[in-house]
């Protein structure tokens, strides 16, 4: 922040207090937040104490392969006798890591492109947004596959691919938010004050676009996790023996008839995460919707 040194007063607390109150009253948002927070707790705890899971995720036990869920293996074992529960729990780390880093990168790129396009309009807007449209014209999975295939399958390249694929989606939202903020008189007042374009873009326009961007970001993070699973399923994402949910479905689908748990549990994990982030995004949208502010 700048040199502003106003203490956080009661007025400001009241401002955020209203947001928190409305958020807490929104069931969707609270359920979504609950799921997301649980996933984070799991990811953080397992990365700090990897031994907390009952089995080593890489330890094979071929004699006990394709075992049905039981007390010792609550989600059964896979084709190499590895414990599915341990692998699903540890897979949370990778899914969240990929989802978060890729969407953060997409947010930074997309927001910059979108706000610049929306602020300058005209030729800049046309050039940037037509490029974004071109990227959006490919199905996300195809574009991600192409990017990963051109580079080489690895975790980092998956993140780069996902970030590139979702940048246009963020850029579109950022542009439309910036376009409406651009027409507000306070932008003109800032110009009349002699502010530079950079100041106006980052200090006047950006803070007023945060709401829709937050919503778009939290919904898109679900899609990146899904796409990561798809890429891993196709063998172009996370490489074995890392426990990725998509990879587990990939190796398990051949055994669907005999050992459905191999697919079911990782799929359920993906579904839970996707639903969690979607609910959170939906809830945020309800709370941040300017129409909700009219009831004063």
């Amino acid at each position: 922040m700048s040199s502003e040194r106003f203490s956080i007063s009661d007025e400001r607390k009241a401002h955020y207090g209203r947001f928190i109150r409305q958020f807490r009253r929104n069931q969707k948002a609270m359920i979504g937040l609950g799921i997301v927070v649980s996933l984070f707790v799991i990811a953080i705890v397992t990365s700090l104490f990897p031994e907390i899971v009952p089995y080593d995720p890489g330890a094979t036990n071929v004699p006990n392969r394709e075992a049905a869920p039981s007390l010792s293996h609550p989600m059964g074992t896979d084709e190499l006798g590895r414990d599915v529960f341990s692998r699903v729990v540890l897979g949370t780390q990778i899914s969240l890591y990929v989802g978060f880093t890729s969407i953060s990168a997409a947010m930074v790129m997309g927001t910059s492109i979108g706000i610049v396009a929306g602020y300058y309009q005209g030729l800049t807007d046309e050039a940037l947004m037509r490029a974004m449209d071109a990227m959006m014209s490919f199905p996300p999975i195809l574009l991600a596959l192409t990017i990963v295939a051109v580079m080489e399958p690895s975790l980092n390249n998956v993140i780069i691919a996902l970030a590139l694929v979702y940048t246009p989606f963020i850029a579109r939202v950022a542009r439309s938010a910036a376009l409406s903020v651009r027409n507000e008189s306070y932008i003109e007042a800032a110009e009349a004050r002699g502010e530079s374009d950079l100041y106006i873009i980052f200090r006047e326009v950006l803070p007023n676009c945060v709401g829709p961007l937050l919503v778009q970001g939290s919904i898109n993070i679900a899609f990146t996790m899904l796409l990561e699973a798809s890429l891993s399923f196709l063998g172009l994402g996370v490489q074995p023996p890392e426990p990725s949910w998509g990879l587990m479905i990939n190796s398990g689908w051949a055994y669907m008839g005999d050992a459905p748990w191999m697919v079911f549990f990782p799929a359920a994990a993906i579904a839970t995460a996707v639903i969690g982030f979607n609910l959170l995004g939906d809830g945020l949208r309800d709370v941040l919707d300017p129409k909700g502010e009219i009831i004063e």
Partner: protein
Amino acid sequence: MNPNTTDPLLSVESLRTQFRTEEGTVTAVDDVSFSLEKGEVMGIVGESGAGKSVTARSIMQLIDYPGEIVSGSITFGDRDLLSLSEEEMQGVRGNEITLIPQDPMTALNPVLTVGQQITETIELHQDVSSAEARTIAIDAMREVEIPAPAERIDEYPHEFSGGMRQRILIAIGLACEPDLIIADEPTTALDVTTQAKILDLLNDLREKHGVSILMITHNLGVVAQTCDRVGVMYAGNLVETGAVSSIFARPRHPYTRTLIDAIPAVDSDRDRLYALPGSMPDLKSLPDGCNFAERCPHAVDACRTGDDPTLEPASDGEGGSHAACIRSDELDLSESAVEAGDARQQKDIADDPLLEVNGLKKHFPSGDGLFGNLSLARTDGGGLTLERRYVKAVDGVDFTINRGETVGLVGESGCGKSTVARTVMQLLEPTAGEVYFDGQPLHSLGKSAIRSLRQEMQIIFQDPKSSLNPRKTVGQIVGRGMEKHGIATGDEKRERIAELLERVGLQASDVDKYPHQFSGGQQQRIAIANALAVEPDLIVCDEPVSALDVSVQAQILNLLDDIQAEFGLSYLFISHNISVVQHICDRVAVMYLGKIAEIGSVDQVFDAPYHPYTESLLSAVPHPTPETQPERILLDGTVPSPLDPPSGCPFHTRCPKKIGDVCETDVPVPEPVGGESTHQISCHLSEADMSDPLYETGESDA
């Protein structure tokens, strides 16, 4: 109730409408009773939030969740509307009671033709074939004086001007021959010349059809012109009702008096306006006693206890006046509350130009997108050529502003006044022309030089809500300019912010609040503090009071007046409101289609000789006094498109004093009149002709 009430068309008894919100229950309409006779026009006036529109919507039962009509009764003819089912109510709405909405730009569906929208209502309520409905619709359009209705019925709303769209809305309202029309601010969104025509139309229709009209408005001038009776609302209560003439001659409620005093009248002196202090109480927690006591100049202790006073007939009963004031009989409010000694100080303005504008032009490429302004044109029967089309928003404007002076720019919407302001400030790049600020040529300075000069020029916008960044506190907003231009930092900055806030009538403790925590008038005060923060020489005021209620408008105008001398400011004051301009400005420029039609001191411009356009603008202003309604000059048609302005004098297509071909061929140049070089008019007429009053001007609409 009214003693002469024999058979009222509409009678509202103890109506109470509440809205349940997160912060508490808002009683928007509290115990309102009134009645409306057949063929009568009743006005309901009051500031925003007074409950006018909610009253109207309660009558039509258009109150949506979380609102609810809690108690009361509404009798229409012999039916109790509140006991009707939603289905029965649908048969009343649009058929027996119709609503004319406020904003003609958004009230019509853009994807349906106007004919479809009129016949829709007719077919819903009347058992007619679609061919018959079409005939009725064309008749209704003819009734509201839309030219060539049979041809225009299949056009879409965007093909009509604002005034014409309002006529279409009136046609929809009239199509089923209703008994009652509720007009909710029917002219607020329109220009003054269009407003005059719509009000005339409503008056005609009412005489012809005997329809009753409930006119909701905040404009006392509109009431004075159209209504028989008027009800004044404040904080959900009806505080005074009575005949228009008696309300204006002798208001019984102090609030009515203050409303009348707050209007800058066209023919008044430049006295200070009476500005009601404070703002309307919070409808969630109304004070004990009279709701108005807090702001009332005549309040006594008895006013602040007990219940809110109820409407009582005035003792002498003249004009059927009723007032909800315990002191209404002892107070004589027939005189204005503005004290004679409170006249504005006369200003001495030296001939010391701060801003000089010469031949300023701003042309915008028309159309959207990269190639939008290109169009194919065939010139002189030759081949097709690509042609760039431009909207000539400002087309050669000259004026100067001296130090300490206020120069007004008036004109209808689209005449280019805001573009002039933005071009002068170099927020838009001028197409041509010179702008000198304090001797420096702004038009040839580089970007960074202009940036440092920005400190000297500030702007105040029409919509205060939009001019303050909602994510910043008041302190951050006001302090930013000081920091940016190195005026003050740290503790010094904080002190100055506090001083400024107190100077514009806020509290020093407001620095940490966010803009949405203030009312519109307070937000405009913050905007003024923000403009003052960088210690400018010139402030451009772009319709600074148009979005505000009259009492708040008076406060802001007085504030602008006060700080002018104190801070040595010059103003470029842009407004479509002639009374406001006359009140605050030293000199005025009247703009029409990107050109200045007349410029001079306030007295010169608003007295003969006039430019014919100035004359018609002045005559169109509704006076807030029922007795003195001047003959109005109704202009033909609408403002021509600036894409393709008329040849010669831009005003010749509508000019009531057009003299002939010279108006169509020769562009008039500004010429001094009355032997004074300061008063210039661009017109081919002789001075004697410009001084001739022009009252009768044939037909109103082409």
